[in-house]
């Protein structure tokens, strides 16, 4: 039969198609290899930390302060400091981020400033004022979105410097000048509040983007259904849009928080302490932090040999906390999904 163009047997694959099949196999192979590589890297990191760190985690390690030049004792103050920091950061970042995203997605026009400007130019009569308002809002939305995108690209150490300059020196300095007649420094130094605010700024873009993404998943038909029943825009957002977007918002929020929990650079100058024998008492206290403790143990220790086990233990605890936070996110999401689906 040779090169019979009417040969329709299925078993003999022409050379051109055979080459295509190799191409297919190569690309699938490469994709699979990437997956294996990533899993392998993760396994090595986790395996190393668990193997060398888990054994060091005892009740004493979790419940006592460091001793003997950080080589003995535990990391209790760092666990507590990290917890409070993350809580405060969440209280500051999530409401602001969600509110910003709701405003951007629900109240500003979907069109570009170019489109709204063109429409304003072409509009006559009584809608002119309204179209000008639409144009201004679309410019505002564009500026805010660019600002959020740029904020997300700023290196975290720059956030730290900003916190030092703005929160501590400017805001804190002004607060001290107003409230401390004797010239005492209370707010004009690094503390829990300023570190949490700085971290909140860092996580804000992630919260905003995740929330907007979640809002986008709520179908337009549901909004129209609510509006057609005489609901105002805000009633529709509160009763239909936000409940529908909640699983996405929670997931995004928790991912942002767990990322913020591990960041060290923003709190270097804004409140983290090398060593404190006591726990933070109020918002103006300094605090110890797991991530910062890891940095200190690995770079500032007088006796590296002695502190290495503590270092591994601390990293293990930090990873565990982050993992628990992510797990909480997954569980909350699963529960709200089930609840929405069963009609709660």
């Amino acid at each position, binding site marked *: 039969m040779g090169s019979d163009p009417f040969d329709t047997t299925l078993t003999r694959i022409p050379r051109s198609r055979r080459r295509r099949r190799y191409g297919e196999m190569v690309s699938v192979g490469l994709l699979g290899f990437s997956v294996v590589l990533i899993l392998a890297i993760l396994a090595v990191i986790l395996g190393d930390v668990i193997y060398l760190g888990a054994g060091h985690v005892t009740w004493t390690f979790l419940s006592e302060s460091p001793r003997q030049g950080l080589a003995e004792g535990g990391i209790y103050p760092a666990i507590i400091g990290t917890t409070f920091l993350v809580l405060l950061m969440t209280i500051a970042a999530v409401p602001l981020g969600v509110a910003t995203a709701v405003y951007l997605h629900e109240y500003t026009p979907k069109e570009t400033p170019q489109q709204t400007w063109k429409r304003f130019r072409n509009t006559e009569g009584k809608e002119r004022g309204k179209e000008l308002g639409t144009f201004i809002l679309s410019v505002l939305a564009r500026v805010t979105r660019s600002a959020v995108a740029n904020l997300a690209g700023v290196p975290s150490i720059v956030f730290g410097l900003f916190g030092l300059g703005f929160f501590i020196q400017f805001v804190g300095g002004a607060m001290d000048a107003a409230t401390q007649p004797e010239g005492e420094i209370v707010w004009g130094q690094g503390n829990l509040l300023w570190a949490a605010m700085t971290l909140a700024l860092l996580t804000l873009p992630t919260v905003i983007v995740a929330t907007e993404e979640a809002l986008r998943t709520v179908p337009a038909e549901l909004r129209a*259904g609510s509006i057609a*029943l*005489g609901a105002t825009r805000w009633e529709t957002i509160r009763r239909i849009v936000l409940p529908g977007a909640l699983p996405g918002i929670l997931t995004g929020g928790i991912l942002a928080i767990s990322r913020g929990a591990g960041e060290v650079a923003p709190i270097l100058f804004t409140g983290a302490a090398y060593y404190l024998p006591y726990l933070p008492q109020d918002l103006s206290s300094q605090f110890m932090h797991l991530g910062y403790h890891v940095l200190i143990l690995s770079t500032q220790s007088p006796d590296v040999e002695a502190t290495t086990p503590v270092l591994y233990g601390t990293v293990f605890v930090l990873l565990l906390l982050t993992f628990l936070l992510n797990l909480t996110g997954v569980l909350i999401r699963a529960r709200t999904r089930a609840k929405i689906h069963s*009609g709660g």
Partner: protein
Amino acid sequence: MPTPRSEPAAKPKIEVRDFNFYYGDLHVLHDIAMDIPEKQVTAFIGPSGCGKSTFIRSINRMNDIIPGARARGRVTLDDQDLYAPSVDVVALRRKVGMVFQKSNPFPKSVYENVAYGLRIGGVHGRRLLDEVVERSLQRAALWEEVKDRLSSSALSLSGGQQQRLCIARALAVDPEVLLMDEPASALDPIATQKIEELIYELKSNYTIVIVTHNMQQAARVSDRTAFFMLGKLVEYDLTNTIFMNPKQKLTEDYITGRFG
């Protein structure tokens, strides 16, 4: 000629005069004039993109939420100009309910779907809510099918049940006019038949306007039919006249299936 000649001189529920509608630069409705009588079914037919959906959405001002939408001319409901600056669109939409092409129950329970309009209207009394929910579901011919699962998710109902739930939801706020934008186009024949029977029941209490792609449906359910094409109202008359004896060549071509 806004009013069909065979009309006894009853006051129309909705009057439309010189109505024009634009999406930005696009002129989608041209000089529409028609009277919609009370407690009857008026059907809008016409090929896709003829403006019938835009027009029905102008009656409860749902087009307001589309950017660049502009209306000119008059639409009155009981002599009240719907586009006057003093009109409260929220109150208007409670008087003029709407059912959409794709059934859109909220991801809440059957009960909460029907109670939604009342709750946002500030009704909280459990007994009143129970009463209205039951009555609305009965009017939408859904009560018998869902009375034992009012607290289960609306999304667990069948497509036809979901659409009747949306009708019940619209009836719960006690509207005077019901706008239906192709309410049965996504349903199977049996569910469609139920919706059509329901429309027939509802017209003794409500003024109904229905957009449909399906000419047999218009012929079955409506008292009057308006034929739209390219944003213009070509012909509007008693449904029998439109289907048996249309005056315009275009209408005849459309209903005999020469284009569509």
